[in-house]
């Protein structure tokens, strides 16, 4: 169990892991854990943590790293997505020193970001104009608010999904991160560095080396071959031809396009073109990958393939990703955390389980109502407290706390008996037919009651 919960780059971190007996937390990052280990007094692990923090998502580290990384990312063939990652949830866990500012330094830190299009946009944020409806604002000031007072952090190594319907401002938001669209107000920091105050050169360096983007319509150069398209970013950086071609060939191979190097984008299918786009973004070895609805233009089957490709890449390399989508199932499938946008605002930000299990408002609830809850929610949500006898007993089936309800149903149905939910060695609860079915039926959780009351009122 404990061997699978960390993504450590060095064997030196091993002792700290054994001391840490909490369940698998796939979304926690090497840097985070390593820094915890450092506080625990392990100097070597602390160094490893620094290294990992500096190169979070670094390809070489990812490849050369401990093979243990893989099972941590993917227990049971699915990306593990278990305990919520908020600091509050983490504090009672044993073995972890209480950390001041327990979250690791975020890759992107966005605060009060606004983007207003139109005439004299800077007078809108913070003024009375911001309170108007979009129609009134367009009428009165000739402005459209695309991003409205948005704040969030993207943590190292996570897949941060921004989801919303078209026109919700999500594409504008992701473009603001590297200032492809100039934000109107607010602050953006990458690794603590202020993006908005960067001059042209610094910004160019940021785009070249630290944040690469994958676009919905691919944005490939039609006159170049696949290989030259992938090498394009490196060419712009001034890399020598032989070197960049070798590197591009490696990337083409990685995204599964080996043998198609000499084709042109026009000769590829949509999915293949997007693989080229992905390879081009990967070639620069960026710290963060930004995806702008990368699979929306693809057929459903190919979309599924590509999603798995991204999941695999993330599992292999642990690179931080910001992923824009309008597709809820896609967001749930690949996101560690999801920010749901509406009308330029973030209406809820949390893990898939939080979004589905505890929608912040009716809009989110409507949004997620068709989601197969049993595939997203875990047994933590379904379980009832164990009686003393049940907790002590060591017979009957067991499931870990990170198991989804669907998997638990499988276990319980096979054995015909309630299953004990284990958090490490400790039994934290029991799931039986009734509590599992409650989740499927949507009768679980306090929110449900709240909603009913609201509906009654």
């Amino acid at each position, binding site marked *: 169990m404990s061997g699978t919960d960390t993504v450590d780059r060095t064997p030196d971190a091993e002792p700290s892991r054994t001391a840490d007996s909490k369940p698998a937390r796939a979304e926690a990052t090497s840097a985070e854990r390593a820094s915890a280990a450092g506080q625990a007094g392990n100097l070597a692990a602390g160094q490893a943590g620094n290294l990992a923090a500096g190169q979070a998502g670094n390809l070489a580290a990812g490849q050369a790293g401990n093979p243990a990384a893989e099972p941590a990312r993917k227990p049971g063939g699915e990306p593990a997505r278990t305990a919520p990652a908020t600091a509050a949830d983490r504090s009672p866990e044993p073995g972890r020193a209480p950390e001041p500012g327990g979250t690791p330094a975020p890759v992107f830190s966005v605060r009060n970001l606004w983007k207003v299009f139109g005439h004299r946009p800077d007078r809108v944020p913070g003024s009375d104009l911001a309170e108007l409806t979009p129609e009134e604002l367009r009428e009165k000031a000739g402005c459209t608010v695309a991003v409205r007072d948005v704040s969030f952090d993207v943590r190292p190594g996570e897949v941060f999904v921004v989801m919303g319907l078209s026109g919700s401002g999500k594409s504008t938001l992701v473009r603001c991160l590297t200032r492809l669209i100039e934000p109107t107000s607010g602050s953006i920091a990458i690794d603590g560095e202020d993006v908005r105050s960067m001059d042209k050169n610094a910004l160019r360096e940021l785009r*070249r080396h630290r944040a690469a*983007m994958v*676009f919905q319509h691919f*944005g490939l*150069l*039609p*006159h170049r071959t696949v290989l030259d398209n992938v090498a394009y*970013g490196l060419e*712009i950086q001034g890399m020598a031809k032989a070197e960049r071609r070798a590197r591009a060939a490696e990337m083409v191979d990685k995204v599964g396009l080996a043998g198609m190097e000499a084709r042109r984008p026009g000769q590829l299918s949509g999915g293949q073109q997007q693989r080229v786009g992905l390879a081009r973004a990967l070639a620069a070895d960026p710290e963060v990958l930004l995806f702008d609805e990368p699979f929306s233009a693809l057929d459903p089957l190919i979309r599924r393939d590509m999603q798995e490709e991204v999941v695999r890449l993330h599992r292999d390399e642990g690179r931080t990703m910001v992923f824009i989508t309008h597709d809820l199932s896609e967001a749930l499938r690949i996101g560690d955390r999801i920010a749901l946008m509406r009308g330029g605002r973030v209406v809820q930000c949390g893990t898939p389980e939080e979004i589905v299990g505890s929608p912040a408002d009716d809009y989110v609830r409507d949004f997620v109502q068709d989601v197969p809850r049993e595939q997203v929610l875990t047994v933590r949500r379904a379980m009832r407290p164990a009686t003393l006898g049940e907790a002590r007993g060591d017979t009957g089936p067991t499931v870990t706390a990170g198991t989804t309800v669907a998997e638990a149903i499988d276990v319980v149905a096979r054995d015909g008996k309630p299953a004990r939910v284990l958090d490490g060695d400790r039994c934290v609860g029991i799931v039986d037919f009734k509590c599992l079915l409650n989740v499927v039926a949507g009768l679980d959780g306090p929110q449900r009651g709240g909603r009913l009351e609201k509906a009654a009122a």
Partner: protein
Amino acid sequence: MSTTSTTPTLATAPDTARLRTLLRRPAARKVLALAVAGLVLAPFAHAAWGSGGWPHALSVSLDEPLRSAGDWIVDNRDSHWLFLYFFGHISNVIIGAVHLVYVVLLALGWAGVTAGAALVAWRAAGVRAAVTAVASFAVCGLLDMWVPTMRTLALMAVAVAASVLVGALLGLAAGLSDRTFRVLRPVLDTMQALPAFAYLLPVVLVFGIGVAPAVLATVVYAAPPMARLTALGLRSTDPGVMEAVESLGATGWQRLVTARLPMARKQLLLGLNQTIMMALSMAVIASVIGADGLGDRVYQALSTVDVGAALAAGIPIVLLAIVLDRTTSGGSDGTPVRRGHPAVGWALAAITAAGFLLTRSHDWPRGWTVAVTEPVNRAKDWMVDHLYSGIPGIGGTADWAAHYTGWVLDPLRDGLQALPWWGAVLLVAALAWAIGTWRTTLTAVLSLSAIGVLGRWGSAMDTLSQVIAAVAVTLVIGFAVAVAVARSRRTERLLRPVLDVFQTMPQFVYLIPVVALFGVGRAPAAAAAVVYALPAVIRIAGEGLRQADPRAMESSTSMGATGRQQLLQVQFPLARNELLLAVNQAVVLVLSVVIIGALVGGGGLGYEVVFGLARGDLATGLVAGASIACLGLMLDRVTQPTKGARDAR
């Protein structure tokens, strides 16, 4: 005009309803407003300045100041610093460059040039283009036109190089800066609508007669398409790709060189092609102001109605046009160039080298020529005797020409000249406003007034009558053929190569066959104009009709529409913009040839330019040239719907 304005006064109850439905159409509303304005203003205009041609009181004679300016330039050309240190240098550089190219071409020898051309054509457009090049140059030599061909080629090479340079720079500026584009675009559009003759006089004023002004006029005429297409190409690059390139951290220069320019390749090549074709066209016409070469031979031959000599010089022009077009349009349509075996290239290179080394006489061998002048002239004489008149039943070509002149052109000209000047202005305004926007209307009215102010009302109406008649003929024939082309794939396949060839030929050569057929006068000019404008009209209208939304066609078929109903109720309305564009092109192209028609007795404004040049009376020529420009502008704006309407939206 009066009929529209009397309708409301006579309106009875059912008429009011009809009027109301009529008024719902914006065009009708505009025309009605103009008619009312005309009714109010016309009596004043009549009272103040009369109702004949353009009133003298409103015209300004520029002849005197222009004459004195011309004299001053002639007097100071050898002494004033402006000429010595600026225009003089430009002129010397151009003459030197043309001479250099000419000497190089002669030094290469006929074999070297032919094989070299074949090599270039093969490289750029494949085996067929190479064969065309070899055959064409051989024919040039056979017709004993080697030296004039080389002279034209030398002049063109310099003019094209300069045009491409100027055009590409302007296009880059307009492609990268919105403001430059907004300023440049209407200028370029207008320049493309003006007849070539309008550009000749200003350069003559400054540089006199000779090779340098010919090259400069050619550059002015040929650079706009390059600039236009470069700008359009740079502007039409996929914004998604540009964003992706920017997201990778490309600098402005890298964006331009690695993404924008390569993606605009197709338009750049098309611009090059158009520039070369227009340069050839102008280089031939510029013989009027001293460009030697093939154009000069045609010009001399036409002035003595020596059809044989004109044809001998005209054929090389056509062949040159075909070779240049085939060679430069090879890579632009995206299909891979068929070059055949690479050995072909080596063979061509070897022949080039061998030709260069072995040909003793660099000129085309004396004995290898075919004299076509005599037989052609004999054939022409036979035609004059047998075809010009007296064929039972159908008359003869001269009879037709006489009928066309007497029954169509003369009444039309007299009518236009008798039209009160304010009536003409109102008519133009009504037409322009009904089709376009208030902006085009204003330009059209101002251009027409400018002609009057310049004192060329009478000759402008003469030219206008020729244009209107020829445009009418062009449109009737052109639309009929376009309908046929749109209905049948086979007709389209048959016509396409013919149209291709016709569209590449310079305007000037159309004058040769019409002189042979109709003699001199306004009728042959009109015939040349019709033949010149037809291919473009057929092509644009045909494509417009064929591309009518297939779903609309299908649904009308499913409702049982007859072919005629489908044509009138579905295809024509759907192709409205293309048809109007075809009309616009017809007007512009017809005008350009009607003006050159002065060389075969067309009269009108073009004649005044030729006359001014021949007599050294630059003032007359310049004013006529300016009037031509105004007429071209007016005709273009009157018939310009799409752009104005689209911009307004």
